[in-house]
């Protein structure tokens, strides 16, 4: 009993966050604006958490998650459009495919250190984006052939509202809950992972790769494992996002700006911590939306991003440990 209480106390922040997250949608269920905000916060947090696994725990600077996010979105969408395969199966297949692609790309590049890996993965992201922009598929229906894909994007065929087809049209509330559940599952997975032997291997690789190798850790295998897991979650988030918008196109979905936003979120929240990316997302998404609303007219809309960038620069310079570092310092002071 006492043990449970101590555990509860240790994880108080996350439990409170979960409770708020699951009650909040009910309070705002009539406001599409807040539901959209919540959904995006959750999806960004899922992506930032996946990025954090590579960057914060295993110490690999990778910028390919946005391409994998896109691959996830495209696989589930194209399987639905072309073959009528259920979205849940497509989502799972997309996750697996993204993991396979990420691992097979990184396997030859695994010797690359630090910035070189970052550059190679940025190049990979751009290559995937250019491929999707130029790749058009011809569908021959009964009457006439038509193109889908390319820069124009793909529409997901509308179906009646149901959990099986993952489509709701009158309210976005179920999407929010599913995104929160995805986030929670990812959090639990990361928690278990980082408290297991594999998690300690990851940390060892980050601290000193040579030393890790000398203690008998197969560094290549565990680096690839980390990349594969992160890719899987990024792609699942992609399928979810596609299903939420019911439309995908490569230009904005796979933009590098989006990728850097994700890494900024993880860094502001606190790199190498479990709830850091979540905190970063909770700060970033509402703040950016709020700034866009308050400053965003027609002409000065871009000043919103300037303000946002400056706020984030100041946070990172003043608190290099991110929001998590601030929180921890506050709670430590209290307990003293």
């Amino acid at each position, binding site marked *: 009993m006492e043990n449970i209480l101590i555990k509860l106390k240790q994880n108080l922040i996350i439990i409170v966050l979960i409770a708020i997250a699951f009650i909040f949608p009910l309070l705002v269920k009539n406001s599409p604006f807040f539901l959209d905000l919540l959904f995006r916060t959750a999806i960004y947090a899922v992506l930032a958490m996946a990025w954090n696994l590579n960057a914060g725990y295993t110490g690999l600077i990778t910028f390919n998650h946005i391409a994998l996010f896109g691959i996830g979105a495209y696989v589930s969408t194209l399987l639905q459009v072309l073959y009528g395969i259920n979205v849940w199966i497509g989502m799972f297949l997309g996750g697996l495919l993204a993991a396979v692609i990420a691992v097979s790309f990184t396997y030859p590049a695994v010797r690359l250190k630090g910035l070189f890996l*970052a550059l190679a993965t940025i190049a990979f992201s751009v290559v995937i984006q*250019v491929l999707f922009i130029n790749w058009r598929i011809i569908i021959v229906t009964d009457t006439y052939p038509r193109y889908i894909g390319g820069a124009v994007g793909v529409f997901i065929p509308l179906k009646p509202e149901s959990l099986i087809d993952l489509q709701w049209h009158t309210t976005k509330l179920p999407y929010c809950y599913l995104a929160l559940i995805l986030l929670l599952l990812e959090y639990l997975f990361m928690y278990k992972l980082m408290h297991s032997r594999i998690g300690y291997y990851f940390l060892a690789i980050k601290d000193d790769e040579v030393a890790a190798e000398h203690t008998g850790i197969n560094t290549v295998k565990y680096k690839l494992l980390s990349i594969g897991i992160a890719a899987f979650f990024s792609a699942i988030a992609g399928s979810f996002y596609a299903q939420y918008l019911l439309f995908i196109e490569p230009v904005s979905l796979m933009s590098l700006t989006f990728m*850097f936003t994700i890494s900024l979120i993880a860094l502001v929240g606190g790199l190498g911590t479990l709830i850091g990316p979540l905190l970063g997302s909770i700060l970033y998404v509402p703040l950016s939306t709020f700034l866009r609303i308050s400053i965003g007219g027609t002409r000065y809309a871009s000043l919103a991003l300037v303000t946002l960038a400056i706020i984030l620069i100041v946070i990172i310079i003043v608190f290099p440990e991110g929001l998590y570092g601030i929180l921890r310092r506050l709670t430590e002071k209290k307990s003293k």
Partner: protein
Amino acid sequence: MEIEGLISSIASGIMMGGIYALASIGLTLIWGVMNFINFASGQLTMLGMYLCFAFTISLGLDPIASLIIATVTLFVIGLFLEKSVIRPIVNASRFIQIVVTLAVGIAAENIIQTIFGAEIIAMPRGIGSMQILSQVLELGSVRVTVARLLPLPVATLLTILLHFFLTKTRVGLGIRAISQNPYAACIVGINVERAYFITWGIGCSFMGLAGALLMLFQPAYPTVGWEFILVSFMAVTLGGAGSYVGSYISSMIIGVIESLSSFIFVPALRQLIYLSLFIAILILFPKGLFPTREVG
């Protein structure tokens, strides 16, 4: 006909290489001396383009004069950036360097978008020396505008000047000493902070000059910087961090590969070809073509 097309695309690749060389020398200088990664480099080039345009249009200066003033302004902007943003994070981890400079770049991009709007802008052809610069020359089978001929000699000249600055002057020797060992340089009495300050100024003015020269023959838009970031990082990784001659040579190679791949394949797939090649080179030579020192 095929051969002529080939020659002219190689020539235009080398001429574009001049722009890339200036941009990547700015990057490699900061990287080599301070061991600092500047992801705002593309946006600094973009600033060079817009400043050159703004000085010509709103102050009514001659394009060549505004090109020089834009370069000087970028020098000052570089000094300001070093003092305000870079100095607190100069010894921070790679992540913080990358993400903070990215944020600086995004801020710069959006300031420009607020002032000039998101439209594509181009230098008007009638103003001052633009009349000469926009004339078309025929050199054998190669047809180019005068403005396109400028970057290559300018880049070559400045690379040589930079070489003399770094090997002959007191400040330059100090900067080189720091790039080899900051602690030892500090002990023998070199002012490290001032050297960093100057390095940033020079680096930024090189990137700005690349943009200003580009503005004379290409249109600009606020997000144009992203196209330079990858190219100049490619040049620096291939040429070796800190090696300006390496950057100069690999910029020419990248320029030629880029224009050849749009000549041989579809222009839309240009990025695909040269980025795949870049990935392949990185995989085959994990430390760059001319490795200089432990980087990463």
